[in-house]
């Protein structure tokens, strides 16, 4: 283990880590927005809208993330949509995780007992109010643990963006290795970087879950 080499290249990897964080955060935001949209589409009475949500889900579930990345990055330009690697990366991550996240949200919403919704209807609450005041606050607490797992997966999957030269941590690692021929040291550092990042995310989201589910134990 060449400690000097590791220390020397750490700043470059940290720079990559920063981009990992940025692209993953953007991907999570997009995944969340798309997932909420998918859930909403699945709840409408319009069969066409529900059908679109279903087709989206089926296509994504049957596509490896790397293939999805190539479709976004190489095929969209063919139809005139030229996009930056970074943008392609965040779109891929967001698209890929949207159906899984939608399923988590749907499940959490369905877990709120029907009787509570009827109690809301009985006092005259509107559908949107029931959603925002009764179902939503409880669903968040139930969705957080499984969503945390998905977010961690998304962070780790951001490594595939290195193949289209997004300057995230894995890409930086490959650059460093090309220069130093020290894959072992560099990948140990990279692994530690991903581990710390996912660990911190898990810690943060677990705290958040504790806060929003306080009513279960108070």
């Amino acid at each position, binding site marked *: 283990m060449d400690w000097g080499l590791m220390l020397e290249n750490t700043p470059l990897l940290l720079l990559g880590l920063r981009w990992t964080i940025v692209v993953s955060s953007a991907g999570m935001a997009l995944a969340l927005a798309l997932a909420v949209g998918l859930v909403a589409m699945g709840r409408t009475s319009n069969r066409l809208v529900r059908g679109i949500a279903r087709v989206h889900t089926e296509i994504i579930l049957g596509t490896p993330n790397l293939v999805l990345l190539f479709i976004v990055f190489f095929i969209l330009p063919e139809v005139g949509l030229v996009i930056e690697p970074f943008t392609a990366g965040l779109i891929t991550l967001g698209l890929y995780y949207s159906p899984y996240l939608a399923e988590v949200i749907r499940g959490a919403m369905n877990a709120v007992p029907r009787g509570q919704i009827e109690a809301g209807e009985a006092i*005259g609450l509107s559908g949107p109010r029931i959603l925002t005041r009764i179902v939503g606050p409880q669903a968040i607490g139930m969705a957080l643990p499984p969503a945390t797992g998905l977010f961690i997966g998304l962070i780790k999957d951001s490594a595939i963006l290195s193949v289209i030269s997004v300057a995230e941590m894995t890409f930086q690692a490959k650059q460093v290795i090309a220069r130093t021929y020290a894959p072992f040291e560099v990948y140990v550092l990279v692994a530690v970087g991903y581990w710390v990042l996912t660990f911190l995310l898990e810690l943060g989201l677990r705290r958040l879950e504790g806060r929003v589910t306080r*009513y279960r134990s108070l």
Partner: protein
Amino acid sequence: MSEPTPAIEGRAIDKSFGDTPVLRSVSLSVMPGEVVCVVGPSGSGKSTLLRCLNWLSPPTAGEVFIAGEPLGKRRNADGTFAPLGERALRRQRSRIGMVFQQFNLWPHRTALENVIEGPMIVRGLSRRDAIERAEPLMEMVGLADKRDAYPVRLSGGQQQRVAIARALAMEPEILLFDEPTSALDPELVGEVLSVMKDLAARHTTMIVVTHEIGFAAEAADRMVFMDEGRIVEEGPPRTILHTPKEERSRRFLEKFMSRSSAMLAADPETPR
């Protein structure tokens, strides 16, 4: 036609779930201040009737009127009915209070927050005004000291009393109780019934679906016996309990009476 208007009236209500008829042309009308208890075997349609009366499950056919106003429908000029808009239906619903068998409190809200939710969100009261109005209700159900407790910290009986306060906070014209004590441990039934007796004594208009024959005998102005989706017999509790006309009600009540007298005999603490 100088008949006073019933607080709530169901006319020829039919309700089917798929091909299964649950209610067959049930008509029930309750005058302001009247307490009506609905009894009958499981599956006789009692709970479904209540849910039709506040449109939680709209009837397949028939009408419901609250204070003479058609519920969930609007009367056309030619006397026919058209479905009512979502908003108007919500406004009507808020005039009918409902207490559920499973309490259905919102667990992420404290007892007080459960009670003020409707007044704040539906009626548009400020939080302070809503609390001011909720406090006497919490007092009335005997839970003033539990106002900041979350439902998970309350017993079933306490939860059901909060649920009653929640319904009362909307100042409903009619209160519907759907087997309010059936999900409770036996020792907690009394505290809920005593709140309900209070309400009855204050001439709150109530329809109570219940298996508590004792409560019905004591608090009801009228008892309704249902079986197989029909009202078999109705009248003053004394008449229904002691001289039922119909064979079906007699059989049902006999079973009940023998069970409750057996219970009384087995319980040395009950004064006879």
